[in-house]
């Protein structure tokens, strides 16, 4: 048993749109160690959900995985026959969606939907399934008496707990949570994140937490993978990436979000401009059009994902100047001047 549960290597996913195609994920590589929470963070539209769904291989009708490997427990599940992949789903890889409201079937009770996975996928008998339902509800802090309720009878936060209970039902090795708290208010967000963290460490499972909110990553994650326009910008231990970012985009993200643990200044500076159209991505570094530190090579050559420290990778031509760039990035003018 290695320390790495999941290793995504050069993953490519594209969407067919009319006659053309969008390379929504264009060579993403990152690792998920066992027993850790990895935050996958980036602006809306950068390809986070596409990556998350590719890991389950339940993707949109017009999507296809066009390259790369997804090594799960040493096995490349990108190349697995559908039957074998389906056997893995939910038993080994479970999913917590953004909106538990829409992802629970409105016409069945929560118990029915738990039973569905426990019995059909987990092979449990009726009694065992009932006991497991009660156990799961206790784990997520809902009274067992509410098992017979329908999804619409729960509050938003409770529904998200139900979704967590569902995800944990079959003791998976990996839980992928796609924006699990985005739809909730801040106080409930904290509660759900605390619970997720607690259950994750209690059960020793791995979690990929997809979010556009860097403060969520700062709050619960062990590691961070920063995505930009379908590629990985920076990946490493959470503290290293967020406290001493080496990629200008990560530096910019940090300035743009409030409430970041240990963030010194109270001033928020957004990154000007918008991510590129993925149907016609710019050559070279995709962040170049918005990067205050872009130099000549940035617009012609794609930077490789290189090591800046053991376990910390960055895809930037000026990664070795990171310390200097961080100082400049801390100044608001840096981000205004360029636009």
């Amino acid at each position: 048993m290695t320390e790495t549960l999941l290793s995504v290597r050069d993953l490519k996913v594209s969407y067919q749109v009319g006659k053309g195609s969008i390379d929504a994920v264009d060579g993403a590589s990152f690792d998920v160690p066992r027993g850790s929470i990895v935050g996958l963070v980036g602006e809306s539209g950068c390809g986070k959900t596409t990556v998350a769904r590719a890991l389950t291989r339940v993707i949109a009708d017009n999507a296809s995985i066009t390259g790369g490997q997804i090594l799960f427990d040493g096995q490349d599940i990108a190349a697995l026959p559908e039957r074998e992949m389906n056997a893995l789903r939910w038993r080994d890889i479970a999913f917590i969606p953004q909106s538990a409201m829409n992802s629970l079937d409105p016409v069945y009770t929560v118990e029915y939907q738990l039973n569905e996975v426990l019995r059909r996928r987990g092979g449990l008998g009726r009694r065992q399934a009932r006991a497991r339902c009660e156990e799961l509800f206790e784990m997520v802090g809902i009274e067992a008496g509410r098992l017979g309720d329908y999804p619409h009878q729960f509050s938003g936060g409770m529904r998200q707990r139900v979704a967590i209970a569902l995800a944990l039902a079959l003791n998976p090795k990996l839980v992928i949570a796609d924006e699990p708290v985005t739809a909730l208010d801040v106080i409930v967000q904290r509660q759900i994140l605390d619970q997720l963290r607690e259950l994750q460490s209690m059960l020793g499972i791995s979690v990929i937490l997809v979010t556009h909110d860097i403060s969520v990553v700062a709050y619960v994650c062990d590691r961070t993978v920063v995505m930009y326009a379908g590629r990985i910008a920076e990946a490493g231990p959470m503290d290293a990436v967020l406290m001493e970012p080496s990629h200008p985009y990560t530096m910019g993200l940090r300035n743009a979000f409030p409430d970041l643990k240990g963030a010194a200044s109270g001033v928020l500076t957004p990154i000007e401009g918008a991510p590129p159209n993925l149907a016609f991505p710019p050559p070279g570094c995709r962040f170049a059009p918005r990067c205050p530190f872009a130099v000549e090579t940035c617009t012609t050559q794609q930077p490789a994902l290189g090591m800046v420290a053991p376990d910390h990778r960055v895809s930037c031509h000026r990664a070795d100047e990171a310390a200097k760039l961080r100082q400049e990035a801390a100044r608001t003018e840096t981000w205004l001047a360029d636009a």
Partner: protein
Amino acid sequence: MSHLKAMASRALQLALVLWAVVTILFLMFRLMPGNPMAAYIDPTFTVEQQEALMAQFGLDKPLWEQYLIYLGNLLQGELGQSFRYREPVAERLMTLLPNTLILTFSSLIVAYTFGILAGAYLAWRRGSVVENTAIPLVLTTRAMPEFWLGMVLLAVFSFWLGWFPAGGTRPAGASYDSLWALYTSREFLSYLALPALTLAIYSQGLPLLLMRSNMLDVMKEDFVTMARIKGLSNWSVVVRHAARNALLPVMTSFAIAVGYQLQGNVVVESVFSWPGLGRELVNAVSASDYPLAQGAFLMIAVVVILMNLIADLLYSLLDPRISHA
């Protein structure tokens, strides 16, 4: 509890609609040109009969008083005397109602069973050759006039192949111990087959297309995607989740369709000489049998209104978002 309250207010609403229908019928037949008594009294009735009806419906009284008497009579199921049959309208209609209901329900059950299954299947096979040929075919059945379809079925299965009788509900001269004995007899079924099939073919398009488009919408819902991510079988995903949700509005449309069908029946009942409400209504109107026409209108309206109420009930039964609000 709020659920019960909602149902009660819906029932009240429908009672108001019924009252409006009753009132419109009253005014329509009273304010027709000619003798206002024409609504109830045929000149060929005997003097005693005429006088009895004058008294029963207060036809010599002012309009508002007639209205009250009319409402009172209705509450007691008193609809007057048919001009043509010289018998109480209510009795006459009660012998026709079962025929109409049997024809309507049997054809709609066939149409909906087929439509729901085929619609779900076509949604699942979206974009396939099967779907591309089936949809124009279904649209064709929607466009065919009922009487034409009825005639074709008659020509083929009755006159040519001789498999089914041509019209009516029973062989000439046949008699049965009870209505129940008639309706459960094999002969009755063979008489029912062609008109029911005609209506079923005509009606199957609506549930089919509705089911298909609902399915296509539901298949895009997150919970269907989640069912796949859970690794559930295709059957579970398509039937237990997608079809079950897509079914809700289709089931409601069934009750509404019963109401529409009662009107559509007119044509088919005429083609197959089926003694039902629709055919009777047409005959009554053309024979100026006003009490009978009025009664038939009313009865159809009552069934339509009742089915609307049932549609609501059905929806709240099938949709936990309403029943467990």
